[in-house]
């Protein structure tokens, strides 16, 4: 499903200096896998996810998603592809503060070409019930705990029934108990829907939740563990 061939990514920082975030990376991810990518801060994990989703372009090499170079598509096709195929769970609080839980979950339907309406709303409510937030449908993000917010984000990521779930340090701001609850949720979703999951974390303790582990350091893969 995902194929990276000799991919490098360099960011230019304030003019002259540049940072090599991903270095000559090659990897494959098959459909239905639950891949955990670990590594210290600055090891290039987040950049890797951005490259896979076509949110940024590779400085060299080739990134394919289902055989398509996403970042080469026109804005319209690229956006539609992300909207239909990819679900995102971010490291930072990514809920829109002015929208309720249900409205946040409905957000991806706003950008797609599917018919919207009651069915979307029913699905949003169902997803929020699945992540255990049936009593927080009308709550605003500021009225939710960190763990609850991340559950809403997961529900939002599943809204358009994606084939690929990209999660960037989804548990970094959470306490240990909540961290394991969220990871269990990912495992359940993967088991139930068969969605391909690419989850980035700096915590080695969470490696057991996936079906495969990749370790990164200095923008390159150091260890592949099937």
């Amino acid at each position, binding site marked *: 499903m995902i194929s990276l061939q000799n991919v490098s990514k360099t960011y230019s920082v304030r003019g002259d200096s540049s940072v090599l975030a991903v270095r000559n990376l090659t990897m494959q991810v098959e459909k239905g896998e639950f891949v955990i990518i670990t590594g210290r801060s600055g090891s290039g994990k987040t*950049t890797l996810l*951005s490259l896979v*989703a076509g*949110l*940024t372009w590779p400085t060299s090499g080739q990134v394919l998603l289902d055989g398509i170079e996403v970042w080469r598509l026109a*804005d*319209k096709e690229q*956006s*539609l592809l*992300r*909207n*239909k195929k*990819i679900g*995102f769970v*971010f490291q*930072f609080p*990514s809920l*829109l*503060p*002015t*929208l309720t839980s249900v*409205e946040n979950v*409905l*957000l*991806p*339907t*706003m*950008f*797609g070409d599917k018919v*919207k309406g009651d069915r979307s709303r029913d699905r949003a409510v169902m997803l929020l019930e699945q992540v255990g937030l049936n009593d927080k449908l009308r709550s605003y993000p500021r009225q939710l705990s960190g763990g609850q917010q991340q559950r809403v984000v997961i529900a*939002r990521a599943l809204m*358009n029934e994606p084939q690929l779930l990209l999660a960037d340090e989804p548990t970094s701001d959470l306490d240990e108990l909540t961290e394991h609850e969220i990871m269990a949720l990912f495992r359940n979703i993967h088991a139930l829907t068969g969605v391909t999951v690419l989850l980035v974390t700096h915590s080695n303790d969470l490696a057991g939740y996936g079906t495969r582990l990749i370790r990164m350091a200095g923008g390159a893969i150091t260890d592949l563990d099937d």
Partner: protein
Amino acid sequence: MHVIRLAIRNAAGNSFRSWMVFFCAALMAGFVISATLVIRGADDSLRLALERLGADIIVIPEGHERRLESALLMGIPVHCWMPDIIVDEVAALPGVVAVSPQIYLSTLRGAICCSLPELFLIAYDPATDFTIRPWLELNLDAGLALGETVGGSFVYVPAGEDKLLVYGYELDLKANLEPTGTGLDQSLFFTLETAYDIARLSDEYAVKVMDIPPRTVSSVLVKVGRDADVHQVAQLIEAEIPGVTPLETNKLFKDQREQILSLLHSVVALLVITWLLAMALIAVVFSLAVNERRRQMGVMRALGARRGTVLQSVLIEAWLLALSGGLAGIGVSTLAISLFQRAIIAVMNVPFLFPPPLRLAGLSFGALAMALSGVTLAVLVPAVRISLQDPAMSMRE
């Protein structure tokens, strides 16, 4: 969920920032509509006053030109006299098709024999008149009889009385004329016969005698033939009849027109400065807003929002604020100007007429459209910049 709803929530989310944009838009639209209303109102008022005068030339005694203008425009009474033989002399000149004399008087100030102080009184000759009767008959079926009068829109019979007292003489106020925004609104019209009757009885009824020198008039209104040139006739009057000044009505109110023009210039200058400042402020506020929401925009892009959608969400938010602010500004300014009409006339020393509803709607629409374009221009740069940003970069700190 729709982009408009998202924009509404975003606008409501940060009330301080939204209020800033709202006030700027209100200021922009309010200023435009106020300036337009005052300047157009002054212009319309002058035009209407000239139409009411109806004559091509007004002949008055030499040296009273300015005072006649302030009488017609601001209602400050003028007293001037010339021999009534001039009426016939003017009528005999080539190019003149109609002449009619008028007498200008005024009520006394602070005297109990006059209901209203310093009212400009215009007495006309119903036998020859061609200027007043046409619009008098719009309000009255017949002309005015002895002891009857018609007043401008500001003339009223004091509470508890049923007649208007002028030099102790009881006048029957038959009607009030539509407002013109000029001195005509504070004028009283009656026939020469009534004027002479008031003067005759003032010795007995009033604290002071109303003096009309025998065989005199205050002015002669002249109508020029279709094939004659007004300017040439005026020159002829000046050359043939000594001691009088012919005023061409289309050249009247020159000072006032210049005043309106200079008002227009300073208003435009002030308008440009205000608009530039308001637009700069909106641009800064939106740059901050967009910067603060960089991550949010990045998230939206990651969830499948197109560049255009991100741009749309920012623009719609700005438009909503501009629309509500603009409407509020227009509403408050229009209300204020309609309420303070009298004060505007007094302070700015220009006549003023509030426009009819349809014209007002048109002007408001124009002002709103201008405010919307101004706000769009101000937010375009930050909005386009954020929509073009690499989403992965937007989401990084």
